[in-house]
């Protein structure tokens, strides 16, 4: 049996696809485990969804192929939360507010604040607290 892997995806739904139960089919027909971090999908408008999908590589690929039969954009890299490296001053103020340690001081000498996207659950705490506006949400 193939190994179970988890991938983080950001889906963009154009207006015409917002009312279709796409995630339901990912679970039911493609046997994927989904963990939705954040969604903003409203009828009559565009929508965004950030989620983890777990399954075998093959199952995930088949699921993504299915999603792509709609006019949905699948993004593997650009996540819902981004950190602007130039605006970040590495003060470390955000670190205690980040519940998963996605933002952490990676070097105790220079006190550089690293942002590990894969650990981010998109709670938006950093967007709310950063005095410099270094963290932003795509939606």
């Amino acid at each position, binding site marked *: 049996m193939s190994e179970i892997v988890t991938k983080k995806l950001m889906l963009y739904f154009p207006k015409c696809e917002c009312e279709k139960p796409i995630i339901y089919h990912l679970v039911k027909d493609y046997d994927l485990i989904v963990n939705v971090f954040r969604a903003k999908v409203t009828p009559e408008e565009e929508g965004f969804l950030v989620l983890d999908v777990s399954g075998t590589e093959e199952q995930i690929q088949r699921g993504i192929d299915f999603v792509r039969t709609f006019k949905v954009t699948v993004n593997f890299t650009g996540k819902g939360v981004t950190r602007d490296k130039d*605006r970040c*001053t*590495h*003060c*470390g*103020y*955000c*670190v*205690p*507010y980040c519940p998963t340690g996605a933002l952490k*001081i990676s070097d*105790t000498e*220079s*006190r*550089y*604040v690293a942002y590990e996207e894969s650990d981010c659950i998109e709670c938006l705490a950093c967007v*709310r*607290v950063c*005095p*410099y*506006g270094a963290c932003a949400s795509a939606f």
Partner: protein
Amino acid sequence: MKTYEQINDRIESGKAVVLTADEIMDYVDKKGLEAAAKEVDVITTATFGPMCSSGCFLNFGHSKPRIRMSEAWVQDVMVYTGIAAVDVYLGATQLRHGDPANMYHPGEFRYGGGHVIEDLVAGKTLQLFALSYGTDCYPLREIRTYFTIHDLNQAIMVNPRNCYQNYNVAINNSSQTLYTYMGILEPNQKNANYCSAGQLSPLLNDPYYETIGVGTRVWLAGAQGHVYSEGTQHAGGCERTPGGVPTGGAGTLALTADMKRMKKEFIRGVSFPGYGVSLALGIGIPIPVLNEQILKYTCVRDRDILAPVVDYSSDYSQNTGKIIGRVNYEQLRSGEIKIDGKSVRVGSLSSYYKALEIANLLADEIRRGDFLLAKPIAALPKDAKMKPLVKRKQPL
């Protein structure tokens, strides 16, 4: 013993030995105080953090016909016009016109004086709108125009209070979230925030103001400026550890420099939800190693510096003067402190990363011979105490 003149001669000939306040402790441990004091000429200190008492004087030059501005706004942020015709003072914490402030609590305060200062230094085009009552010599009643920092005759930063020698650690003992200038404080001591560069901070490396005084040349956001006075609320006559390190606020500096020479990386507008706007600034100050005692002071380590933990739900806001306890900066930098045996996560509003970058940039400028030291023309007061504002019912 060295003099300012000898050290400047060495800087000018490119021979000065310069270390940062982050490097000097290990160097002195290795070489010994006596040998290190002979070898090392200058220690660079630095800090980067929000400093509310900051702002700048701008001179716009005269329009045709002339205007004597009586009210003015830059990017819809009001500036002070109670000075000469086309001079204004732009303050860091001024809100933008129409900002709902805390009407819908917590307010966001996305843009204000600090952000205008950042945009000005970054060379962006800004809008000036000014009104006047009109006079015979200044007939124009209204002007709306666009400008950049290069159009101004002068853009001079004049900050009444920067570089607090030490500062509070803010915590919240209440059951409700607090929105403060020390950041968002979650209920029941869930988190704590501090704001100091600790062992790298200028006045913590010169605790009795022996080299930093009025006239000291400083690195202010990349420009060469100077200390023009003690800062507001300067209170050198505070409690100190046996090593001389203040255990609370203590000394402050008033700084000035030409904004046209500043670098945008070291000057940033900041927004504190529920509180307001401010300006984060990068400052570097060189300390000449005139004698062994001065060098010894610069060897202060984070573990030797204590900061008071203050409850911002009552003791700070009600000005009771009470503290919960004291912690050192080594504990603070570990990201966790113990309060009543309970672990509390800690964040910093001051960027040690940026401060370190500034200390190294300043050290390089001195090594290249581009930054000479200035001997103070007057010392900062050592025994001043801070006075409260008394609410009086009757005139005296």
